[in-house]
């Protein structure tokens, strides 16, 4: 049986790491994920885990050391945020291209400039095409649960691909919440033992890791890699079910909150989903058929499943916690619109950017989104395809 604890999202990630007790963690401090390697270092200092902690001199070296350790045959984890994640960027492609099931906790944060240490999704969305599995958590409980599941997903024989479990910087990373910490032994049993496929340290069978592939070969390797990433979808479902059996909290590819009969649907990821659920409940009490589709698995993007889940919607608002940066909308918006293109019921889809650099997104802002959706359905007209929440000055 687990026990109720009052700990932050970062502490949740650190406890998951303690229980997983990976062979190697290589990490560099960066706000807001710094408390993760700090807590890990303390666990090691107290003899509660025996991981080799490599306190590297940069995030680039953090991911490089993770890759070296994973190729060597170790189970490997790390944590980062924002600019640190960006500094890893080159190595993120290399980790996935070399098929090393490294698992990373990301306390998602805004990227400079201007410098800002607070929560948004600029980092993980910037790295969405690095070939990593991306799970996004709503709260501390999910940060903990997703990190544990990420190990099983990443290491699955059909997948063997690195995975990250993200949670919002500060909103979750630094918020104390009450959640269930499971038994050490139960977690250990759930994740099982790890055997690397091609360990470098097996000197009897020397392996070459990281050869370069000329045009004759590169394409085949990248598509082979993509297959592994795509295989993660079914594995995420299976591991989510198994997790439910083991710990009573089942996970799917996404979470449908009062979605079945919803006319007005918000699609979002991360901690704003909790705030949105409160708003949905409130609207439902007032007879408004509001619903939420919470993204959990962002990469690989389960477009078919999500399009199916959105069939009842009469109008959809997608919330992106990142600037569209010149695209037609935010990355989540583009995925959703694209997924719906092949379905018969193409509800109008609008896009909001919200919460950049830790800007507060309150129930009243979410409420305004549902009001806009209602207006779209009532009038049949979309006035603004793209807008911002809680931005000073009207956008456009």
């Amino acid at each position, binding site marked *: 049986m687990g026990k109720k604890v009052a700990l932050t999202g970062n502490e949740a990630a650190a406890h998951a790491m303690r229980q997983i007790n990976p062979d190697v963690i290589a990490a560099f401090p960066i706000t807001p994920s710094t408390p993760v390697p700090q807590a890990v270092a303390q666990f090691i200092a107290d003899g509660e885990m025996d991981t080799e902690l490599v306190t590297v*001199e940069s995030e680039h070296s953090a991911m490089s050391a993770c890759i*070296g350790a994973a190729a060597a045959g*170790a189970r490997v984890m790390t944590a980062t945020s924002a600019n640190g994640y960006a500094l890893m960027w080159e190595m993120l492609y290399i980790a996935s291209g070399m098929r090393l099931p490294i698992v990373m906790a990301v306390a998602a944060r805004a990227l400079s400039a201007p410098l800002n240490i607070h929560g948004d999704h600029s980092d993980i969305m910037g790295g969405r095409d690095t070939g990593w599995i991306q799970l996004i958590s709503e709260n501390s409980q999910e940060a903990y649960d997703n990190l544990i599941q990420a190990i099983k997903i990443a290491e699955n024989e059909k997948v063997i691909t690195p995975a990250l479990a993200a949670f919002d910087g500060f909103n979750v990373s630094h918020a104390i919440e009450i959640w269930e910490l499971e038994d050490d032994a139960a977690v250990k049993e759930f994740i099982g033992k790890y055997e690397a496929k091609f360990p470098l340290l097996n*000197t009897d069978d*020397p*392996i070459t890791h990281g050869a370069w592939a000329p045009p004759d070969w590169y394409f085949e390797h990248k598509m082979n890699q993509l297959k592994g990433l795509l295989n993660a979808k079914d594995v995420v479902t299976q591991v989510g079910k198994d997790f439910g059996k083991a710990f009573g909290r089942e996970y799917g590819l996404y979470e449908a909150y009062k979605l079945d009969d919803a006319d007005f649907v918000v699609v979002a990821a991360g901690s704003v989903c909790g705030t949105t659920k409160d708003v949905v409940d409130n609207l439902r009490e007032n007879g408004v058929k509001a619903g939420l589709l919470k993204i959990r698995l962002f990469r690989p993007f389960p477009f078919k499943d999500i399009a199916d889940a959105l069939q009842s919607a009469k109008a959809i608002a997608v919330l992106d916690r990142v600037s569209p940066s010149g695209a037609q909308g935010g990355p989540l918006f583009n995925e959703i619109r694209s997924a719906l293109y092949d379905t018969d019921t193409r509800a109008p889809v609008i896009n909001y950017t919200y919460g950049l650099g830790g800007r507060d997104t309150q129930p009243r802002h979410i409420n305004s989104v549902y009001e806009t959706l209602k207006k779209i359905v009532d009038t049949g007209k979309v006035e603004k395809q793209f807008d911002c929440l809680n931005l000073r000055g009207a956008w456009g």
Partner: protein
Amino acid sequence: MALLNDLAKKKEGLVSGHRLCPGCTHSVIARQVFAAAETDKYDIVVAAATGCFEVSTGLYPYTSWNVPWIHTAFENAASTISGVEAAYKALKKKGKVKKDIRFIAFASDGGTYDIGLQALSGAIERGHQFLYICNDNNAYQNTGNQRSSATPFGGSTTTSPNGKVKFGKEQPRKDIVSVLEGHHMEYIAQASPSNWRDLMNKVKKALDVDGPTYINVIEPCTTGWGFPSNKAIEIAQLAVDTCVWPLYEVIKGKVVINYKPKKKLPVEEYLKPQRRFAHLFKKGNEYLIEEFQKQVDRHWEWLLKREECGISYFED
């Protein structure tokens, strides 16, 4: 040191079929390194930085490596090997790895003096066991001979070309050994493949250290430096005999010079056979050779003085 006949019987860590230029000394150095490693006592695992050596020896689906080998990127051979070494410690502790393993990283000057300096410094400071070998070919040769901070004064490269108003690289090369000395590691050395016995001695010593060690090796580049492919070893020897490339060790901070030429040759002897220095011999450029000689002399004198003073960081 064993006879070459004995060493020649050993299984080679690096085999033929690689795509290095004819006369390239990258592989010569690596072969000497493997010949020196006491593989009856330990196994070797190698990490490589992106560069000529890496692209030529790990071109899918071929590998020239007979030992476990990993390449990840240009600037991080040191951090990659530190991850491998951390995994070794972890798995050894858990009994999953039983053998004794020593770690070697190969990089060139680009991946060491420049883009890889931070990762190298970090890995050394953390104290991982690895021998870092810098095959110093004085420029970014893999991308076509662009200047690096290891390019010597006056050297013409594709980004420090000799021209109508410029004479090649205007700055002296970075003294990487001195940079690394600040880490107070147990063993640093400079070697040349021309002096194979000396190089092998150094490799053997370095691999005996349970911590980070570094050997800076001159790697004459027939293509980038501009000399015939059969002259590579001769050029290396001239670098040693002119004291352009002193053979020395820094053992726990104490300088030991391994070779003092009976007759120190003038730098012209080293510069002349190389196309990259050809412009220095044009009329009116004599002052550049004088400056080159001055820089070499100053460094050599400084090394001699340091050897003489014999101070170590550590108590012996």
